[in-house]
């Protein structure tokens, strides 16, 4: 059953050095505040899993949290490269980063397989490409009816899933709307799930009978962090801060400017700093 905690307590309780951690959110609902807390608490040797390592993983990798990255697309969406990710892969700074690389279809299916309690995911893909030659976790399985060889990858079962969502009720049931990404799958696939939310309400209120709700008993901890997805966004709350994504290119390009930015905005800040983003953007909306 979900425990309501401060973000600091939740990260301390759920995320351990060496864990496999999936911080998810497909453009929408990326839990930046929670990732910052992991950085502040100095977690090390994490295997970070994420379809689209963008700014949030550029920060975690650049701060030395990660020993390995499992991913399918690493870039700053609509802007360009991730300089910290590149620096880690190309130059081993601040530490070497092992990578396990997939395509989106593989990762999406692997999370779904994890949520479904299956040992592997099967799909039609990886035909004629070089990735299977460099990733031993891409194999083939043969259809027992047609003989077709299909792609197989291991299910993703992270130790910890970290996601942001819109709101939770007092029983810890969590509502997600808008772009869903793999939020539901990663929570159900993980051993422990940490969810940050924009607000906690008495009742989730009128909604579609088929609304995407994660029951409280699928979640380990919920932390209230208004604005906690910034510079990503929360449907119905605030919009994506596209200017921040554009600006990140300059901040992250250089080790020194990156480190200075992280010191000021992460190491010496706290989750409350995110509330400002919520307010500012809510006014503008």
């Amino acid at each position: 059953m979900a425990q309501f905690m401060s973000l600091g307590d939740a990260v301390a309780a759920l995320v351990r050095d060496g864990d496999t951690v999936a911080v998810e959110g497909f453009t929408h609902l990326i839990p930046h505040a929670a990732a910052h807390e992991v950085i502040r608490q100095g977690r090390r040797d994490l295997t970070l899993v994420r379809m689209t390592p963008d700014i949030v993983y550029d920060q975690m990798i650049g701060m030395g949290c990660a020993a390995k990255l499992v991913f399918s697309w690493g870039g700053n969406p609509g802007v360009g490269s991730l300089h910290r990710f590149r620096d880690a892969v190309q130059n081993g700074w601040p530490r070497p980063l092992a990578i396990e690389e997939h395509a989106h279809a593989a990762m999406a299916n692997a999370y779904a397989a994890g949520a479904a309690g299956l040992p592997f995911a099967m799909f039609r893909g990886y035909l004629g490409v070089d990735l299977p030659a460099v990733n031993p976790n891409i194999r083939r399985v043969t259809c027992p009816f047609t003989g077709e060889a299909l792609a197989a990858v291991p299910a993703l079962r992270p130790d910890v899933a970290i996601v942001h969502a819109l709101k939770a009720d007092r029983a810890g049931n969590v509502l997600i709307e808008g772009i869903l990404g793999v939020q539901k799958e990663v929570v159900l696939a993980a051993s422990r799930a940490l969810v940050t939310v924009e607000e906690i309400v008495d009742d989730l209120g009128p909604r579609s009978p088929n609304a995407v709700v994660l029951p409280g008993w699928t979640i380990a901890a919920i932390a209230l962090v208004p604005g906690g997805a910034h510079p990503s966004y929360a449907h119905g709350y605030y919009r994506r801060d596209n200017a921040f994504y554009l600006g990140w290119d300059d901040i992250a390009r250089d080790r020194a400017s990156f480190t200075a930015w992280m010191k000021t905005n992460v190491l010496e800040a706290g989750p409350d700093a995110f509330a400002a983003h919520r307010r500012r953007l809510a006014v503008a909306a």
Partner: protein
Amino acid sequence: MTSADTTLAYTATEMMTVVSARALTSADVCFVGIGLPSAACNLARLTHAPDITLIYESGTIATRPSVLPLSIGDGELCDTALTTVSVPEMFRYWLQGGRITVGFLPGAQIDRFANLNTTVIGPYDRPITRLPGSGGAPEIMTHCGEIFVTMPQSRRSFVDKLDFVTTFGHGQGGDHRARLGIRTKGPTRLITDLCVFEPDPETKEMTVTSIHPGIDRDQIRDATGWPVRFAERVAETAPPTDVELETLRDLHARTRRAHAADT
């Protein structure tokens, strides 16, 4: 289109965008990528293909953004969509399910058979430049009815041999796709800032079929890392019409205003 339709000057990127847009119809269900493909698809929707169905890999189906998204999952895409599904569902039921008629893909490198590299420059284990990786591209290339590749042309990116095959286009050419059991057409157009390539019906080598106004064959040869083949009949690409240009520029201007207001 007659020359009377075109009175405005235009950039090479506008030319690429307009040519890409023209290849789409209202009957298409299009898997849209960010950047030029997104501009092209929405230009088509706002001009000759009002009923085109646009799908972004973030799960938004039949979206009608009034401004262009910066990312594949901006809120604008969800707000204006018919519905939004999860990413696993998008890849399973919609893409792998064979419901997309056309997809757009870019590449950091391309070869003569329109295979693409977006993974790495240099050796995989010791990269000179680490690129973003596969994303949805390998399966977009396999599952969409056909693929339009859009890339500005240069010897750095149009290469004789890819450093890494991220995405399988026509492979080694000929019936290579069919031999792998792939039933879709693969890359049917390669739209650059200089010209349009289409695959040779037999060899599948990408072959120039239309050259943009003011471009000559040597410019194309100079920007290509393999000996370029030209089709028997090469057309001159019709320049962007004023309607196309004005619609595209309005779209970009709206986008700039909206993004500025967000900050």
